[in-house]
């Protein structure tokens, strides 16, 4: 388990993370979403012992991470900007990983190279951006660590490769009980991959939830009645958002959608439609409910009703 307590990291006068607390359980795919500059990469660097916290603690399986090889040999990190040895190829990089990670599997490395159809003898600096990311993913997954950290993993991968990587991650989580922590500035990238999602905002996690619950906990209702009405007509429901134009009202409701549908239907509406929300919409409404106001365009998207 990854445990962060009051984790703080500053760069000069900039507070990249401030009193961050979180628990990431073992055997899950944990998504960390946030706008640019929210602190996602800083958090991952702290998770991997690259940065030393200015305040607070971060531990993995109970051990402090910074400069602790015993803990770090269970972690592998694929950063947003990749590093390869100069003039190296995949085989050379595998040698480097093999010498550093005690559980590095050459068998897995061979399998992954075959699956991704990458030339292992070709210099990595001749690879495209997507191919380089595939190469980094192959190396990370071959390290057979308990924790895998991906920073903007799917950036640059085509849909086919994206699905391939996702499949491999699932396999690792299911078969080896591995924990994957993935960051992205786009919820759409994560919603069909992660078990848990957290929103990082101005250096702190403001919202954290199980994805499945999150997706079903909110729904949108479009309703119209012949007579005039207002929000109080639905006082027995937890309405997060209510807007009315003419006789048609749009509501965001938390709870059981079937129960809500039956309760409204009993009032003989002219129109009644239950619509699912995207994960981004769920996040935004939940955040608004918590009192946060976002300007991040990626989170607002164009689909908000």
């Amino acid at each position, binding site marked *: 388990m990854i445990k962060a307590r009051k984790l703080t990291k500053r*760069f000069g006068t900039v507070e990249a993370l401030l009193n961050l607390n979180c628990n990431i359980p073992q055997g899950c795919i944990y998504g960390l979403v946030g706008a640019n500059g929210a602190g996602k990469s800083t958090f991952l*660097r702290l998770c*991997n*012992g*690259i*940065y*030393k916290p200015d305040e607070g603690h971060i531990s993995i399986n109970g051990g402090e991470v910074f*400069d*602790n*090889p015993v803990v*770090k*040999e*269970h*972690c*592998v*990190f694929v*950063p947003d*900007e*990749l*590093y390869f*040895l*100069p*003039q190296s190829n995949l085989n050379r990089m595998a*040698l*480097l990983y093999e*010498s*550093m*990670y*005690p559980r590095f599997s050459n068998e897995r490395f061979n399998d992954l190279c075959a699956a991704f159809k990458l030339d292992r003898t070709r210099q990595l600096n001749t690879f495209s951006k997507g191919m380089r990311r595939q190469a980094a993913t192959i190396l990370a997954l071959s390290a057979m660590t308990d924790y895998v950290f991906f920073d903007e993993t799917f950036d640059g991968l085509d849909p086919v490769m994206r699905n391939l990587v996702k499949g491999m991650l699932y396999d690792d989580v299911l078969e080896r009980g591995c924990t994957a922590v993935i960051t992205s500035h786009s919820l759409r990238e994560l919603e069909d991959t992660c078990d848990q999602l957290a929103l990082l905002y101005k250096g702190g996690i403001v919202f954290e939830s199980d994805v499945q619950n999150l997706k079903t906990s909110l729904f949108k209702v479009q309703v119209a009645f012949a007579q005039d009405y207002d929000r109080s007509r639905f006082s027995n429901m937890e309405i997060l958002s209510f807007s009315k134009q003419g006789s048609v009202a749009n509501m965001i409701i938390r709870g059981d959608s079937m129960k809500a549908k039956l309760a409204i239907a009993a009032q003989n509406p002219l129109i009644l439609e239950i619509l699912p929300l995207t994960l981004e919409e769920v996040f935004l409404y939940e955040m608004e409910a918590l009192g946060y106001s976002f300007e991040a365009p990626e989170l607002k998207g164009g689909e908000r009703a």
Partner: protein
Amino acid sequence: MKPYLESIRKLSRVGLILFALSIVASAVISIQYCTALYHDNVPSITKMFSPLIAFIYAGGIVLAMDGFSFLNKRTDSDFYHSLPVSRKKLFWAITLAALTWIAATVLSSVLLTVIIFTITKTPFVQLYALLAVPFFTVATMMVFSACAIAMSLTGTAITGLGLTVLVFGLVRFVQFAVARGIVANTQIISWLDLPWYLTPVTNIATGQIAQLLRPMLRHTLYDPINMLYSAVIVGAELLLARVLFAKRASELAEHGAKSATMQTVFACAAVVPVVILFASGVVSQQNISIPIVVGIAAGIYVIYQLVALRSTKKMLISLPWLLVPLALGVAGYFGTTSAAKSMQNFVPNTQDVAYVQLNGAGRGTEYIPYQQYLVSEVQFTETDIRQYAVETLRDNVATIHRAGYLNYTYDDQSSYMLSTQPVTFVLKDGRKFSRVLTFLNQNTLMDYCQQNSDFNEAIRTLPPQSSVRYLQGGDLYDKAYMENSVILSAYYDELPQTGYPANDFYRIYDPYMNYMVNEEQNYGNISTAGYVGMMRYWDSYTIRLGTPRTSTAWMQYQNNHSKNEYLDLLQEMANKSETLTRDMDYFNISMMVYNVPMSDGTRQTMSFYFDRYPNDAALELKTKMQTLVNEFTEILMRSTPTTNPNDFNVYVTWSGRVHNDDGSYIGGDIIEQQFVSSGNSFVSGGSIYFVSNGDVLYGGMSGAISAYNPSFRSFSPEDQVRVIEILKQWKAMQDEYNYTMYGGIPQEGPSIGDATETTTQG
């Protein structure tokens, strides 16, 4: 182990390049040296392994910058710090990998050099090979460790390189400047006599630079003690670098320094060398004013800060810190001056001096006589010499105070008696200090020295004959030079019986030139070079009549190589020189005459000279001398080579460019067939110094004939009588000529006697 192997692999790119360059350079330079036409000494360690001197700096910096290059880029730094290896382990893995590459390169280069020297049978000090490997490895690691510290403190390649220079050289530069100031201010302390903390070569990496500036430091640079001291520094610097590396924030990558404060510290450090140069007296105060120094210092500071901080406002805020290095400069000036005065003025009492040591006037030169090494070990406890040394020191100091420098009056009577000697005083309380003293009378000094039996033994000791590697420029490994070894063997046999010092340097100086008389007559010199352990020496021995077998061997050697003196050509040119027709024509003859009978019954060596030019001054006198020269050359034709040093004999060299009336070149047809010609020059012989097996190596460009390879020649009794008469007249005319032309007054002493006063002693 795995991180170490990985680091070896990581460094292999630059490691292999450096390895290849070093190997190629070592091979090329060794082959060049070993195949050179002429050697006269065993090479120094600097000369033998010169490519490794470059490797110290190139290897140290390149390997460190490559090994720790990931610290300068965020992505690279993140990657390495994310790996499951502790920073401590990562640092040592890179360091040990660099050490492996350095040691492998040094070892291979040294081995290759040794192999080339061995194959080509070029003499070298074998122990150098053992010393060179750890020496150059440690020196390179000094640069590496300085760079490792710099890389751990900064986050860009440029600042890393700049800080490397500061870490590596700043302290040593300050030390060197202070030492320079003390040497200049005291005037009686040499670079070799500074206290250990001011000696530039204790640090063997910066010492290499110091010895380029002060070559006399070369001898002490390779002292194993310096190597050990440097190894300790390497260890300390690596430990410091390790701590800094472990504490280094990863986010420093791509930033010059952790903070503006650190930038200011670096800026102040960059200014220090300028103010110290002035403060220590290296930059003369007459040539440069204080405002200019402050201006240069401020300029460096401002430019550095503007580049580093990228803000004029921040630079201005930090400007007061410039006062720190300026204050350091002022403190340095007063510190250096007062330290120099204190050292200069220290004169012990004779009774406090346990003993003195004479380190040898030539100790700073490339080649040192063997006897000087031995003498430098002698402890002179005798009262006379202790007192003489203390009085001389007191007098030297007083003279400097009075005149500002050592301005002893040089007059005809005493100037040649002045002797400058480095002297070490060892006090009874164990303290030790050295000064370069100017003794007023070297013979007095030598008299006092001779009270010491160790000294007397040292100056008469020859190096083991088996240690001699070069003889008279010849190589013992080359059989063509074996006859030289006959001369040397004879000298080794005879010298102990004579009581002469082995080297003339330790002889009592005779102002009356008595060394040209009787047994002191000098037939030539033979030089030897070799080594004992790691001590290289170069000796020159005078071959005197007092060692007759050596003289005979020498004469035999000279005569053997004098295959044809072309005496007929000499006579023809001498006769024709009365009427030289061309402006460039000339003729000269010079000779040494041995065993000339003198009026006081002694036998002496005398020199005679005659020359002719188309527009001679003192024509009448020259014309008279010409008659004598013509007759002498005619008699010379009848002379025969001799190897008996007691014979009345002559050794004639001559040179000329003389044309016949028909415009033909006298001797041209003969000389054209000689071994060597160069351009329009004809050469009849070569200096014996360059002759090994009779081949001629002398060549001139004037078109003249030069005969510098005569044999020693003696005469029949009748001719001998006539020659002596000729010499009497020649000497008189020569003295007259010298007086007329140059105002030279003939030396007082016995005149040439009659032939009856000498006999040929065969």
